[in-house]
């Protein structure tokens, strides 16, 4: 019954909102997954746009986590009540592209007279969100993992800074624990599949899946159960079982264990800058992702999300969407967003502008992610990931890898099982989407 009243109340509110805005500007809805400080930044961003002109009003609505936003969007789309714009994470790329529910951003912008040139965006973003040079979604909040560390802890253990390679970093972490500087030398992030596995394979230039990690077709298969990646998971397992690396578990988020000074390091998205700046009461800094000794590290890959335009709206609404995207791509907007949130600037011009301001001299850690994303020439292994059923496979892989941490199975078997489960999902995706990209 409560649900029933909720629906009634919602319908009433919609009716009122509809009446009041009938003769005013064109209003569009933007569903996002940013909460806390980042949610406030989104509100500010939207306000900037709304204040900058009088024709359009964007209404930003936080709908929970990325999963919840996607679920809400699916339910809304099926009920034909979808918003105009929805923020969806990088992992859902193929789900969105093949949903039949979206208007590709390039197409939309061309139709509305704001043609958008994909090459104005930084390369790792374009390779993720464009198919044949055509942007499918509007790049919005892009990040990449970096290593945050507690400089006080490193000094106390007798180190200047974390080593660049795993071979240098590991003994440092062990020492921090052994010398009693901190009981938790590193905390495992919740999205370690992204930061410790996918990005590890990109940076160290090893294949994660065939067909250039899915870029060349849906008939891709996982191959991460051999070579260096097995070693990486063995390393993680050793760190976890010796207590050097701790798991945050439920009830607390990993980054809080870093900002509270409990754990000495964390490999987390550069967007964690917002949380670290706000909460860390010690001398902290950040560094690039560690890599394997003897390897020339490649670029890391992006995470975060992009904005998708949904089908089924009137041309006036799409005009408003295009105007909003146009505003987002502006250098000023990008520079502000980058500095306010910690996400990377998605256009080259914004990066140059921030540099010209001397921003990175004052905030050196803010540049790490950009530099790391753009270093070297991307190889087939570091272009990005284009994986169907990615949310599903992500859960399966993490389940298997954590079974290895728990000692339920040997690492090799856990990875074999992860690959088998992943490939089963991939084949199912291929079966359903036969003939698509």
């Amino acid at each position, binding site marked *: 019954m409560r649900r029933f009243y909720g629906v009634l109340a919602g319908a009433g509110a919609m009716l009122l909102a509809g009446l009041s805005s009938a003769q005013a500007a064109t209003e569009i809805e933007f569903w996002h997954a940013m909460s806390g400080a980042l949610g406030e930044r989104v509100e500010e961003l939207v306000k900037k746009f709304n204040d900058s002109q009088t024709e359009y009003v964007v209404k930003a609505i936080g709908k929970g986590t990325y999963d919840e936003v996607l679920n809400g969007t699916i339910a809304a789309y099926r009920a034909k009540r979808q918003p105009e714009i929805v923020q969806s994470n990088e992992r859902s790329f193929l789900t969105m592209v093949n*949903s039949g529910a979206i208007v590709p951003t390039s197409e939309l912008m061309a139709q509305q007279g704001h043609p958008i040139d994909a090459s104005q965006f930084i390369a790792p973003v374009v390779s993720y969100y464009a198919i044949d040079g055509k942007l499918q979604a509007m790049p919005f909040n892009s990040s990449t993992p970096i290593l945050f560390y507690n400089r006080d802890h490193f000094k106390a253990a007798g180190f200047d800074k974390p080593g660049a390679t795993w071979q240098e970093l590991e003994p440092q972490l062990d020492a921090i624990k052994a010398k009693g500087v901190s009981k*938790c030398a590193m905390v495992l992030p919740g999205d370690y599949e992204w930061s410790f596995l996918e990005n590890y394979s990109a940076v160290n230039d090893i294949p994660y899946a065939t067909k250039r990690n899915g870029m060349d077709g849906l008939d891709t298969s996982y191959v991460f159960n051999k070579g260096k990646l097995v070693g990486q998971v063995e390393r993680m397992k050793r760190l976890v079982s010796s207590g050097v690396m701790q798991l945050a578990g*439920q009830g*607390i988020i990993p980054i809080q264990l870093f900002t509270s000074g409990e754990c000495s390091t964390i490999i987390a998205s550069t967007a964690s800058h917002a949380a670290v700046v706000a909460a860390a009461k010690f001398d902290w800094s950040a560094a690039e992702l560690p890599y394997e000794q003897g390897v020339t590290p490649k670029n890391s890959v992006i995470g975060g999300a992009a904005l998708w335009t949904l089908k089924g709206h009137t041309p006036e609404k799409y005009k408003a969407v295009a105007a909003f995207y146009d505003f987002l791509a502006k250098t000023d907007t990008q520079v502000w967003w980058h500095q306010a949130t910690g996400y990377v600037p998605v256009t080259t011009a914004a990066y140059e502008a921030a540099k010209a301001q001397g921003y990175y001299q004052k905030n050196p850690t803010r540049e790490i992610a950009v530099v790391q994303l753009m270093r070297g020439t991307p190889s087939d292994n570091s272009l990005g990931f284009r994986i169907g059923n990615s949310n599903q496979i992500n*859960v399966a892989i993490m389940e298997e890898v954590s079974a290895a941490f*728990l000692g339920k199975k040997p690492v090799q078997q856990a990875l074999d099982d992860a690959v088998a489960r992943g490939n089963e*999902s991939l084949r199912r995706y291929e*079966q*359903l*989407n036969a003939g698509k990209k």
Partner: protein
Amino acid sequence: MPARNNTAALPVAAGGGGLRLRQPLRRLFLKSAGDAQSESGLKRAHFQEWRLPFWLLAPQLFILLLFFFIPSIRALIQAFQLTDPFGATTQWVGFQNFERLFRSSVYWSSAQVTLIFTIAQNVLTLSIALLLAFASNHILRGRGAYRTVLLLPYAVAPAIAGIMLAFLFNPRVGPVAHMLQGLGLDWDPNRNSWHALSLIVMAASWKHICYNYIFLVAALLSVPQSILESAYLDGAGPVQRFLRISLPMITPTLFFLIVINFVYGLFETFAIVDATTRGGPAGATSILVYKVYQDGFVTLDLGSSAAQSVVLMALALLLTFAQFRFVERRVNYSV
């Protein structure tokens, strides 16, 4: 959508045979079941014509249709399909979803976890509730206050209870966890499946003890004083009176609670699991109903999720049947 509505509605069917039901939905089911059994009393005297009962039932039937029958049928259909989350592409795949399910070792381990979880939760809940009911029955001063305090957890939303417990028992920051570690127990539900499982058993029981407690207190009150007094005169102590007299006389309530606890453990504990452990570590607390949610709403594997909810629905029907067939028949209602 279908999967979630479906599981939320399942307890209605399974618990329908019980006696004291709160929701209108449940009352409906009970009433119709009762109608089939007897033609006497109230019904015959007041409702000789079909229209009034029909209109009285209609709103509830409508809600049942909306939130139970339509979602269930859609889940049933979806269980035989492979579909894109947005509904762009749909393929009929026959029993492929079920085959995949029963072939999957993950599903069987989830079933195993569910079995352990529901039994442990049932035993723990019932025994603590029984202990509390027995104890508070013997307190004269402030009995009302004790009862109120004991009932409070029922008012706490499952998600909040879950998060609170997750925090209290978090091995890094939780005060209770630090206490356990101080006692020499290497408490870590993030790395030890048994610790995680016991955590959700505790969370689920803590939420449900109150429910059991109300029924047990009421049942204990209905035990005739005369019998208890004569036992007292014969020299039986309070424990003996409880074990020999009260307990056998409240078996109907006990059986009812066991069934309700099973239904609760099987279908209503999803929020607690989601808030406490999210099914982890490594699927150690991923009970069947949580898997329905996770596969349907997190990983968007709608076909598998629907197939799982169909299996759960069958299980609920089986439980209801078993309750009517075996339990109700053996329990002595003549108190």
